[in-house]
């Protein structure tokens, strides 16, 4: 599951903003209104793609770690292995998993971000 924020937290923040009364010509409100629109777009993409991405990530993590478990448990295990040095940060199988994870999450959070094209163009630019 995507966290920091979760979809539920994002939805809460959007609902709280929608409940605010705008003063005409308030530049801050106009700015936040665009941010809220972006948040709604993220929530729509996550509702559509989130479950599939998590299932795929869980399968990759299972292969990488040779373990079974849910996404949270396996992801935590991977973090601990990296922290303790059990997996090298430049390990090819690790990087394949991290790459797929990054591509999946940017597709939800910010699909037009230039870093996606940079990663897909293999070694260029970034």
């Amino acid at each position, binding site marked *: 599951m995507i966290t920091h924020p979760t979809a539920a937290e*994002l939805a809460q*923040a959007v609902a709280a903003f929608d409940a605010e009364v705008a003063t005409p010509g308030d530049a801050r409100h106009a700015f936040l209104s665009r941010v809220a629109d972006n*948040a709604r777009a993220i929530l729509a993409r996550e509702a559509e793609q989130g479950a599939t991405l998590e299932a795929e990530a869980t399968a990759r993590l299972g292969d990488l770690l040779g373990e079974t478990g849910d996404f949270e448990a396996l992801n935590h295990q991977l973090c601990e292995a*990296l*922290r303790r040095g059990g997996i090298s940060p*430049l390990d090819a199988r690790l990087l394949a998993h991290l790459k797929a994870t*990054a591509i999946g*999450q940017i597709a939800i959070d910010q699909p037009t971000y230039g870093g996606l094209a940079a990663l897909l163009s293999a070694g260029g630019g970034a």
Partner: protein
Amino acid sequence: MTLGEGGNHSLMDVATAIDLLAPRLSPAATGARNVRRLSGGASLETWAFDLSDGTPLILRRRPDGALPRETALPLASEAALIRAAAAAGAPSPGVAHICEPGDQLGEAYVMHRLEGETLGRRIVRDEAFAAVRPGLARRCGEVLAQIHATPTDHLPPLATSDARGELARYEGVYRDLDARRPILEAAFRWLEAIAPAPPERPVLVHGDFRNGNLMIHPDRGLVGVLDWELAHLGDPAEDLGWICVNSWRFGEWRKPVGGFGDYAELLAGYGGYISLDRVRFWQALGSLKWAVMCLMMYQSFATGADRSVERAMIGRRTSEAEIDLVTLMEGAA
């Protein structure tokens, strides 16, 4: 937004104080007009105004009761650094006045208002900047060389940091957030393994030298380096790497320097020898720091300190730094 409540200065208070200060800012001025708030973070306010003789100025002030960010400098120190860097030749807004208690503005200083653009998206795309864009990366290198050559003997007190220290500091923040981000875990270990030794002589590092903090004039190019609150002593490559972080390329990811130029131009402008590897290390550490900053800003939403949708959403920019880190790690593997 109402500023008059809770002991804060209202627009009226600030306008009155600036009006009284005007004769000390310019001998020909009898007052000030067009006082307006440009932006207001929780830690710093920026106001624009004109003296009655037409001089365009900017006031930077700490909101009443606001605690400075842990790493941010006092505003008087920031002003002193701008003066010192300007004396070393770096383009700067020019500090007109550092406020004293009698000025009734709190912690604040006044600087000249430069003509130009700071919005990165416009600087990398707008036709108005097409003429200056090709020379901008080299110019950034030249200006960084000037900033780094600023004599450090008489600067206000500054923290000193190096690559390992910065990594440890940000890893500490990340651990406190209790997030589970394998890309960041891998990046900490990767960068720790390749961190360069501290420089022989720490230099004045701007600390936030990026597209967005540079005033760019359509004809004269880089006319002022802004936002000095993260300045410190450290590795000169830190500033060169930070402006190459993909998050400040505004979609122009093929142009690593600010979305407008190449590494070779930046290094040629800089002159003295700094290896591209060292710059790229600091660029990667920059992406890692940006990821942790996004998580920190989200945290102020999670704890209830700032429940705005903006604070919630910034957390979802962590993934932009993560994808950049994956690209950099792939390139290194």
